[in-house]
């Protein structure tokens, strides 16, 4: 789109001079944004750049300290999410806003259920839900299923269906595709394009650059609480955009991979590993110094495989061996213990990774308390030294060690989760989608860290939903489909094309060498 066309249309929604402070921290400073009907507007920025705050203000979750908002040139102020919704602004949040114990249909019409004789009309609600699910392209989800029984990717589809059921004029998607499979993303994009052609204004926030290039019309970059640049999509290179976001030059996204030394003996191996109906005959080896990726569509057993190796699942069959010796791992306690030395960086840092209300210090030393204590008493000096080292090593940005870990930004929280396990100096590191919802800068630091750990002879098993990451970080990638390893890619054979093809379990054509 050209600049003249941008100016010609009067924006549907405008924000001007928005400021917001949380205590002493400035989240937004004189930020502005114009959203037009019928266009997809991407918002880019690192975590902590102010995107989330901006959206929360638009959605009525928080009120701005200064500035004004105009909907069709009329000034508006929202005191609650319900009011913003009434004005036609629907938001799909990064943190899911679904009620786990209610059914899909209940959730879709939670804000405005259909009534009959003063009570909820369940038949009408069922129809609404079916319509909304069909609109989002998620007909596979049963309206009566309880949300808590659905995997994350299905929940996100329900969340999108719920937002669409409101028939909004402005739809905000905040990292709403982070857990979706490639197939779902394609469906959702098709729906979004159709809605936009019908006049919906869409704000799209994502850390996945290729999605933004694919779908957005306009882009606005936020940095340190200000909008620093706006441009039509496709007019800037990926590298230029990243530079705008982090305000410094980026060298290379992924660190170089050293050649894998063939002679190394596997530190972690499993043979014919199966569990329930989710894992079938998994056989794999991970050598010291190697980063082995787990690929495939989301929910093909990758998460279960990591949990199984870590001893969380009961009733697994097959063998797991450590240093070539069969080991029985009865639980996380055994898995992390001396001889095995395994660590699992979980998928959901909020529930499985961190004790949110407890301090950064306490969270960092949790996994290593046994090593920091003598006869049950914690050695404070040693704890202090180790923690300082980790904070430096991972460059964790925190106002102090004694503040609740929940007050850190998402990227820094994730660093704390990783640091807490590195305190034990693990030999085997399992990572379950560790960069989901994390900003570009932190992602790059993670990649460097992974490589450094591998260089220090750690064996790394790494599941990611982001194919770029698997291509950039891994020595080998095992692609899972329906709980089985269907393909192993190695070295130069790890390409996005090969990953997608084997993830969909279509027979991949031999790649043409370019």
């Amino acid at each position: 789109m050209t600049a003249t066309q941008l100016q010609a249309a009067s924006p549907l929604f405008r924000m001007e001079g928005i400021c917001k402070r949380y205590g002493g921290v400035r989240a937004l400073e004189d930020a502005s944004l114009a959203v037009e009907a019928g266009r997809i507007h991407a918002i880019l920025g690192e975590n902590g750049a102010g995107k989330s705050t901006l959206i929360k203000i638009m959605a009525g979750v928080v009120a701005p300290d200064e500035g004004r908002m105009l909907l069709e040139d009329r000034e508006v102020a929202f005191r609650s999410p319900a009011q913003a919704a009434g004005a036609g602004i629907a938001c799909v949040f990064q943190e899911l806003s679904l009620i786990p114990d209610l059914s899909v249909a209940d959730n879709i019409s939670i804000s405005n259920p259909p009534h009959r004789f003063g009570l909820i009309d369940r038949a009408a609600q069922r129809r609404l839900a079916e319509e909304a699910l069909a609109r989002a392209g998620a007909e596979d989800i049963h309206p009566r299923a309880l949300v808590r029984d659905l995997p994350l990717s299905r929940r996100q589809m329900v969340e999108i269906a719920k937002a669409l059921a409101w028939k909004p004029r402005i739809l905000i998607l905040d990292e709403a595709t982070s857990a979706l499979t490639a197939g779902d993303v394609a469906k959702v994009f098709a729906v979004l394009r159709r809605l936009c052609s019908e006049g919906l204004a869409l704000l799209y926030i994502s850390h996945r650059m290729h999605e933004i290039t694919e779908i957005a019309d306009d882009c606005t970059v936020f940095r340190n609480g200000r909008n620093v640049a706006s441009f039509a999509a496709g007019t800037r290179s990926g590298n230029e955009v990243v530079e705008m976001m982090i305000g410094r030059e980026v060298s290379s996204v992924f660190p170089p991979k050293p050649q894998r030394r063939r002679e190394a003996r596997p530190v972690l191996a499993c043979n014919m590993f199966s569990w329930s109906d989710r894992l079938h005959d998994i056989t794999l080896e991970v050598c010291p110094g190697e980063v082995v990726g787990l690929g495939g569509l989301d929910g093909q057993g990758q998460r279960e495989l990591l949990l199984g190796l870590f001893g969380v699942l009961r009733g697994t069959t097959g063998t797991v061996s450590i240093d070539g010796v069969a080991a029985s791992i009865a639980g996380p306690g055994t898995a992390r213990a001396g001889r095995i030395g395994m660590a699992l960086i979980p998928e959901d840092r909020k529930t499985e990774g961190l004790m949110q209300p407890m301090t950064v210090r306490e969270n960092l030393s949790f996994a290593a308390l046994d090593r920091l204590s003598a006869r049950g008493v914690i050695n404070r000096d040693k704890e202090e030294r180790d923690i300082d080292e980790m904070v430096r090593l991972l460059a964790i940005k925190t106002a102090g060690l004694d503040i609740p870990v929940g007050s850190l930004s998402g990227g820094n929280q994730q660093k704390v989760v990783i640091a807490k396990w590195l305190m034990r100096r693990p030999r085997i590191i399992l990572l379950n989608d560790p960069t989901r919802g994390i900003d570009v800068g932190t992602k790059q630091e993670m990649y460097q860290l992974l490589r450094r750990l591998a260089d220090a002879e750690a064996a790394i098993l790494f599941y990611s939903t982001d194919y770029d990451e698997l291509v950039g970080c891994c020595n080998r990638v095992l692609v899972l489909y329906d709980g089985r390893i269907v393909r192993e890619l190695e070295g130069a054979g790890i390409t996005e094309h090969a990953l997608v093809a084997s993830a969909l379990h279509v027979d991949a054509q031999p790649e043409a060498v370019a």
Partner: protein
Amino acid sequence: MSEWRYWLNEQRGTLMGLAIFLLMFCVYITNHPAGLTVNVAQTAANKGVLLAFIAMAQAMVVITAGIDLSVGMIFVLTNCIASWIVVGTPMQTALGVAGVLLAGTICGAINGLLVVYGRLQPIVATIATGAIYFGLALLLRPFPGGSVNEDLADALTGRLFGTIPSSLVALLGVVLLVWLPFRRSEIGRAAYAAGSSEAAAFMSGVPIRRAKLVAYTLAGLLAGMGGLFLTFFTYTGEAAYASGSGYTLWSIAAVVLGGVSLYGGRGSAVGAIFGAFAARTTGDMLFVFDVDPLWQPLLQGMVLLIAISIGALGLLRVRNRLDWFQ
């Protein structure tokens, strides 16, 4: 999955409560010297209905992830009030009944206001109000006494058509008139949403505060109904502290037996009713096995533990240990 499997999944807790009750009741009745006669059924129903009302009240609040430790005291207070005012002509009696229910409702509403708008922790807030309600009961009835319209009392504790315990019919009426409309209304759904995930409910624009207030208020109303029935059974009012706190604790056991999650968002008041009947049966069980009264509390506790363990059997099937923490 077919349609009924989803229904089964939704009602799992309630059906578990029903199963536990049926199991215990069968054990009880097969060992009862008289077997299942109309009289035995009537006595069992009348005893069960009292706890059933209190358990329903507790379930209302527990669904919102709260707890009400004053239900037993509202029960005692309304009993004392009823022993003063549910007397006289049919008209006066009707007004009296309305007054008792109103008193219960007000007690519940006070709890709700303190918890929702006063932002007090439900446990401490209701311990305090419970003590106040008991204090009022004691002032009303320093000594056991009073009376009740005996025609009404006999009608509601007797039998319909000579066979069906009328207290059960009354309980069914309350389920149909109070619980089902609540369950199917927007406010009821909001109560479940608030208990399941308060943050998600807020983000979805759900009226959380109103829903919690209504839940606590209805809990007061249901506890008041319990108090009314107590008066019908005993014909008197008594400010019995042990009875009040006993009913409070047993109501919590009953909701758990009936499949209501103490973390909120799961279960139903119907399940709580089954839980209450099951909890009642634990006591009666010792009677049919002719146990020395001295041993009763100890054995009743053990039977209760067994009953709760049956409900927790599902946890043994868990193959992903992370599911334990959900």
